[in-house]
């Protein structure tokens, strides 16, 4: 019994470690030709979770800046960025991954869209957020999977 538990624990430890090893750190994300080809985690994104992250004010809060016809029931869509309708036609997932992880890599330094998986941020970051990204690697994959479904 004791032995069995030890083995199970050991197996868990190994999977946890390898999951982390598969996750690309924000400073190691490889932007090439305005795209990020490789998944940041190796685990496919979940569009349903991605949809929640997109509208959640504490997570993506993408709706703060982008209107999105798929979310007509939500109040208050921002107009700072382009409408999301058809974004899945206009961009490949690898491009969406680049835009969402660090919009500056695609649109240039001047863009106001935050880098959601970037540590290249502004001055005086709130103490508890130093070194942290807005979204996790898996959340980026989820949002990419969701935005890729926005086709017209």
């Amino acid at each position: 019994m004791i032995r069995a538990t030890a083995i199970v624990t050991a197996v868990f430890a190994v999977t946890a470690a390898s999951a982390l090893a598969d996750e690309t750190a924000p400073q190691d994300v490889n932007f090439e030709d305005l795209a990020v080809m490789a998944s940041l985690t190796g685990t496919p994104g979940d569009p349903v979770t991605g949809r929640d992250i997109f509208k959640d004010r504490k997570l993506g809060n993408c709706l703060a800046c982008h209107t999105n016809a798929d979310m007509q029931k939500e109040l208050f869509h921002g107009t700072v960025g382009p409408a999301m309708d058809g974004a899945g036609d206009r961009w490949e997932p690898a491009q969406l991954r680049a835009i969402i992880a660090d919009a500056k890599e695609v649109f240039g330094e001047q863009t106001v869209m935050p880098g959601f998986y970037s540590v290249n941020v502004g001055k005086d970051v709130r103490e508890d957020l130093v070194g942290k990204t807005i979204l996790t690697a898996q959340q980026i994959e989820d949002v990419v999977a969701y935005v890729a479904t926005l086709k017209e």
Partner: protein
Amino acid sequence: MKNRYATVGLGAVLAFATALPAAAEPVDDALVIDGQTMTVRTAAPEGHPFDEVLSGWLFREAETRELEADSFQNPGMLYVDLGAEIWNTVDGTMGKSCATCHDDAADTMKGIAANYPKWDADAKRPINIELQIDKCRVENMGAEAYKFDAADQKALTTYIKHQSLGTPVAVDLSQGELQTWWDRGKDIYYTRTGQLNFACASCHEANSGQRIRADHLSQGQANGFPTYRLKQANMVSLHNRFRGCIRDTRAEFPKAFSDELMALEVYVTWRGTGLSVETPAVRQ
């Protein structure tokens, strides 16, 4: 991979970037308070990034605009009344009130606040109304400086600024080293802060007129402060607003009346040159 994928270049990206949805335009409306027409739209001073400076009033919903236009309905007027009381109340060890030295504020304070911040030659830094009140309290009344955002500080500031209702904002940058502080404030205005990586200009210059969630982004003008905010059901001071906007970028924010925020006040006030003082403005 689709064809476009291989060919998408910066040109294509820029084409997307400029295809923004139509801005929610500020209204074209006149603000008349107690028979006096406010300047809510005027030509920008030289060196300004905009052609026209616009009051935040033009960006608010109709009900909010009406509340400000009607001084019987404007909840901020209660704080003007409270400020008048404080003006006439003796405080401190010297047995004086503001009125002891300045008599009737309707005469002596008329138009004065429209020219703040000014250069304080004693402190060798800019001084705003809040700090001027504290200076009088400490030096001329033997009273203590107010704590930042104390109810009395906000009421008295509101009262004094209200004596300039309608007067165009004009900061005299030739005083002392005010120009150097303006330069520094400008730097701060364009410096991105926080995890979200926004500068003041990201919202109030690049995107003024756009909606960010429920808010209609104005030019972030200072002419209505302290303002009555419906959301907070209270008066909000200018430095409180600055700190709130900086906090929203997920950054640590400077202390009220710190060098950073005084520099910002000089610069932001200048950006509203020519707009009427609207204190107490009503905002959502």
